[in-house]
Structure formats: C-alpha cells, structure tokens
C-alpha cells in the first residue's frame, strides 16, 4: 500500500462526520482507521469532535415555564369540553 492510497489529515477532518455517522464504505473506513493508527493529531481531533458532541448534548435546560404548562392544561380542558359537546 503506497502513500498515494493514504488519506491526509486535511481530508480526515472533513470526513469525521461521515466516520462517526457510519456513512463510509468499508474500504474508506479501513483507510480512515489506518490513518488513525499512525496519526496522534487525528486521534485527538476525533476525540475533540466526540467531546464537542457530548458538550452540545448538555444544552437541554430549556423547558416550558410553569405558567405555560398550566395554560396548556387549561387549554386541554377547554378542548375536552368542546370535543365532548360537539359529539
């Protein structure tokens, strides 16, 4: 396997999402893995990407206010009343 077959680091960084999403052909995935086995920089890059995804996943604090929730429950009662009166 000559150097011509190898992926460069510059290419790796644009392929990480395909890699993480398992959207790569088997041969491409094998080339990717082969690159990782000899390139510490790209291993770290992949780790950073996983870390980025993990951190993004922590932004879940938004939720409806209690007022909005209670408004919704009243709306539910209104809806139920209308639904039963119209049938």
């Amino acid at each position, binding site marked *: 396997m000559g150097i011509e077959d190898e992926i460069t680091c510059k290419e790796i960084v644009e392929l990480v999402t395909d890699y993480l999403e398992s959207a790569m052909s088997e041969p491409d995935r094998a080339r990717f893995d082969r690159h990782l086995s000899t390139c510490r920089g790209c291993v770290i890059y992949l780790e950073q990407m996983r870390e*980025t995804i993990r951190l993004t996943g922590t932004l879940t604090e938004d939720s409806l206010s209690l007022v909005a929730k209670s408004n919704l429950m009243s709306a*539910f009662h209104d809806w139920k009343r209308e639904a039963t009166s119209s049938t």
Partner: protein
Amino acid sequence: MSSEDQRVITALRSGDEDAFAVLVERYSGQLQRLAYVYVKDRHVAEEVVQETWIGLLQSIHRFEGRSSLKTWLFRILLNVARSRARKESRTIPFSSLFDASKDAGEPSVDADRFQPASARWPDHWATPPSQWHQNPELQAVSSETRAHVKAAIDTLPDNQREVITLRDIDGLTSLEVCNLLTISDTNQRVLLHRARGKVRKALETYVGEAR
C-alpha cells in the same frame, strides 16, 4: 402505528389529562429549542410551543399514524414556527433548499494548521490539535463552557442550527431529521458536519484562551 403511539393517541382522544401532561413534559423542551431556531426569542418560542400542543389536540382525530406521533408533533411545530417567523419577517431556514454538492463551505480547520504543499508531509498537521482532557471546565461542563457552546450554535447559519439542535441536543436520529426537514441524508450530514466543526473550533479557541 407503534403500540406506544396507539396507546397515547387513544388516551388523548378519550380526554386523559395525565397522558397529555406526560407528553407535554417529555417533548416541550425539544419543541422549545426547535422553535427558538426560527423565532429567536424565548417568549415567542414558548407561545409557538403552546400553539403546537393546541394544534395537536385539534387535529388528533385526524392522526392516522403514517408517521410517528413524535414526527407529526414536530411537523406541527415547524409549521407554526415558520409561519410565526414569517409574520415577524425573519428569514426562515429551508434546509430542503440546501444542496451539499454545490456548497464547498469553509474548511473545518484553518488551512494554515496543515503543512504546505512544499513540505515533506503536505496536508498533514503542522499545528496538531491538543488534548482537552486536562481542561477542568470542559470535564465538569461548567456553565461557562455551556455558554460558549450555546453562543457558537447561535451564530451558525439557520439551516445548520436546525440540524445540530435536532441531532446533538434533542437526540433525534438522522432518519427522523431527514423526514422532518425533508432533506437528503447527504445534506443532513453536511449541515451537521459544518455545524459541529464550528462548535469544535469555538471550543478550541476557548480552551486555548483558558490555558
């Protein structure tokens, strides 16, 4: 229709308040974040979510289960949020108009981080990334770290924000996102790639400054 969806729909149609409350509790956070992508205001986003739930109730008798209840709910939200955004004359992200094959985009990593063509290993790292393990802010997911991630996402183009919000915050699958936004798998992946790349870059800057 899945048996779970079937159960919930039957409960809602029969006016089961607890079933509605459970559903509201489960999905309102996700709906709220998606609404925010379009209307960019917390209060308006909250109104959009409320309108969505009412829309769901009003059309519950028409639900035939061709999609999952979740996809259906998110579609109602998209319609409400997009029309609300239009009313407030904001630009609306239409990811379906995005064609990954025609968009070269900017690189995930600045070109000068790689060795030049004249070097011994062209396009291999010149300035490789460094490990983040040692950064306590990141490890503990401090509020400052979260603020940086949020700020990075807020500056993304709308169609990228849409996809990263649904995938990486709300945890929808790629298939769910493609169905919901009616975009191809490739487009979805390219938008996600660009979005994640910019968030990573912002974090790298943040970690670098903290060092």
